């Protein structure tokens, strides 16, 4: 009973921290949350122009490949870059009250999770407009992939935000790493065009599995359970380790913030 109460309180805290993030992110902005969808759409059009029209990339369904890569990537990208900053950005609260800090970085994931939810209807409309097939497997596939992605992001934000309290270079490092990862993950190209001889190194990037999952689901209605299993078996233990490391540092936070 006590444990259930604890979880309930944690979820309540997560909810209000996420709500706060929503209020802060787009204050004084005119179209607010619409940016969350416009941003990847704008990128998709630029890449479509550059690769399909200018460089004449011969890839079937390229626009859909772009969208199914860019929407999840924007979620990854913003959660990690904002997440790394999250303890520093919330120093006001952390210095004054002692509480369960680990919900702060997770709230950054949840904020962009909600953004991502807004982009799913856009994908579906796009599928309908271009005359592709919708699949019933979306109904199970989408929730599974959402949870998989959240579980995957949690250890990253937890550890990045914790290190960033002590060494502020982490946030700059994160943004450099993210721009490299953008091209090392099949976001603006399909995975089949990666040369075979690089594939064994290429597949070490965990985000490859995630993007592949989303793309297969939306394009062919297939859930690649193998990838879900790989991600969970790596990231659940990783998450526990990161949580332990972060927790051991919480008491030093307010002196460094």
């Amino acid at each position, binding site marked *: 009973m006590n444990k259930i109460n604890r979880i309930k309180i944690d979820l309540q805290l997560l909810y209000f921290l996420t709500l706060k993030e929503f209020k802060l992110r787009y204050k004084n902005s005119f179209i607010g949350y619409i940016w969350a969808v416009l941003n990847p759409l704008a990128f998709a059009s630029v890449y479509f122009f550059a690769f399909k029209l200018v460089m004449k990339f011969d890839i079937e369904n390229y626009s859909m490949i772009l969208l199914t890569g860019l929407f999840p990537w924007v979620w990854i990208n913003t959660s990690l870059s904002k997440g790394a900053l999250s303890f520093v950005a919330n120093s006001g609260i952390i210095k*004054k*009250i002692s509480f369960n800090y680990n919900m702060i970085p997770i709230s950054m994931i949840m904020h962009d999770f909600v953004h991502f939810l807004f982009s799913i209807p856009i994908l579906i409309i796009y599928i309908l407009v271009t005359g592709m097939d919708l699949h019933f497997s979306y109904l199970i596939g989408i929730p599974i992939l959402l949870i998989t992605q959240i579980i995957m992001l949690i250890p990253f934000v937890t550890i990045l935000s914790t290190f960033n309290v002590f060494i502020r270079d982490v946030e700059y490092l994160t943004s450099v790493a993210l721009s490299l990862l953008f091209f090392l993950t099949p976001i603006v190209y399909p995975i089949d065009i990666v040369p075979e001889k690089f594939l064994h190194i290429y597949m070490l990037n965990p985000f490859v599995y995630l993007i592949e999952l989303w793309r297969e689901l939306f394009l062919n209605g297939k859930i690649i359970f193998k990838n879900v299993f790989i991600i969970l078996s790596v990231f659940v233990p990783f998450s526990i380790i990161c949580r332990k490391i972060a927790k051991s540092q919480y008491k030093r936070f307010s002196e460094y913030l």
Partner: protein
Amino acid sequence: MDILKVKKLHKKFEKRLVLGLKEFFININKNQYSKFNRKSALSDLNFNLKKGDSMAIFGHNGSGKSTLLSILSNTIVPSSGEIFINGNTSSMLDLSSGIELDLSGYENIFLYGSIVGKPYSHIKRDLDEIIQFSELGSAIHNQVKTYSSGMLARLAFSIIKTTEPDIFFIDEVFSVGDINFRKKCNDYFQAFRKNYGSIVFVTHNLDEAKMFCNKSLILNEGKQVFFGQIDEGIKKYKKIMS
């Protein structure tokens, strides 16, 4: 029964990592002695409060009063020594103490409540009481950054008081409230003390200290100069200050 007991408390701030290349190459001479740049922030503090006792902490600027309150509130850890706290605590370490300036007062009530672990149903239950005590009226829906410091203190205190602690840790924050609000807070604290609640507070206002506290602690450059009855403490403190 002791409600708060501090034994051989010692705090030395960690030597920071060199945070930038410039500092790494240019070694600023920090070895010159200044009482604000001493080795230990706090050294060898020993005191205890019984249930119903309240304590005022006196001392010059930089003598370690706020550090002590932060340690008692568990936001920073002592380097050595022991602290026993028997009961729930609430802290108001500065004016905003965890209030988010970009949110409205109303939204802050829910955020703060969740941070200190209050269930949603309790926050809802206390909502009216908080708004009423703060006297902010419809301004509760304005962004907190538009508030004056007095209004901020009203909001913060009204929220914090509903956490119903056994011990309050308060760092001189009521100097900004107007007479009405201070009277209201004073009445609240009188009632709180009658119910055997304890207050530990940093203040430079000796009358206020005398009104709420029966004990006092004087710090000087991180060392405990005096711990004992309030009257004696005030006399000692006046002597030190002159």
